[in-house]
């Protein structure tokens, strides 16, 4: 099981990538920051970084404004 944003749960399977988790969550935000077990994951690695079982997965949608 992968815990997303301390709230949602995604079934884990071997080889599941960051991209797979985002797709499973239906997250298609254009600007999103990801960490897995407190490690920042760049979009360059969304298709290659495999998420471990029981991972703490954070997906933060970045908003305009400052």
């Amino acid at each position, binding site marked *: 099981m992968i815990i997303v944003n301390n709230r949602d749960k995604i079934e884990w399977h071997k080889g599941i990538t960051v991209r797979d988790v985002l797709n499973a969550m239906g997250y298609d935000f254009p600007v999103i*920051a990801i960490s897995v077990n407190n490690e*920042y994951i760049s979009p360059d690695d969304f298709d290659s970084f495999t998420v471990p079982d029981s991972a703490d997965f954070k997906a933060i949608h970045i908003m305009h404004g*400052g």
Partner: protein
Amino acid sequence: MFHHNKIYARNVAGMTDILESRIIGIAGCGGLGSNAAIALARAGIGRLILADYDYVEESNLNRQYFFKFDVGKAKVDALADHIRHINSDIMLELHNLKLEPDDIPRIFGDADILIEAFDRAEAKFALIDRWCKEFPQKPLIVGNGLSGCGHTNELKVVKAGQLYFCGDEKTDIEMGLCSARVAIVANMQANVAIQLLLGGGKI
């Protein structure tokens, strides 16, 4: 040095000695950056690295830490003047330029912590990506969702590794911006930075 300064006589015990030796970078000196910088100056930070390409306009005065007499000045210069009027011993490094990701290591490499204070989500993210790749151990405190009015209880801090997101994660700039809410989030960013410099603990 700072602990001899009466400005900080009412600071929390021990914080002045720590903060005066620390460096914070602020990327963007608008609503978030200007208010965060002033909070950090009043807290006793030793050195600030400020970067912004923009100039003060009258429409900034509803939320940014500027005054009518600042209109037309570079934001970094106007903000530096206000900080010097609080404590002229704070070391200031000013960069009046449009930050590109490749500038981040050169300009903010000395900083213990970076505060993100841009307007556009894409620019915020470009900063996040570059900072995290370049400095994976250093915190970056991001303003994320500060538009609209009220709804104070929806403002929070979310930690994601070295990233700390301050705001409501949902309001967008097209809703308009209110002085109080912008300043709350800016001060949340400054408050998180101070806590991390003082040793962390639960945010």
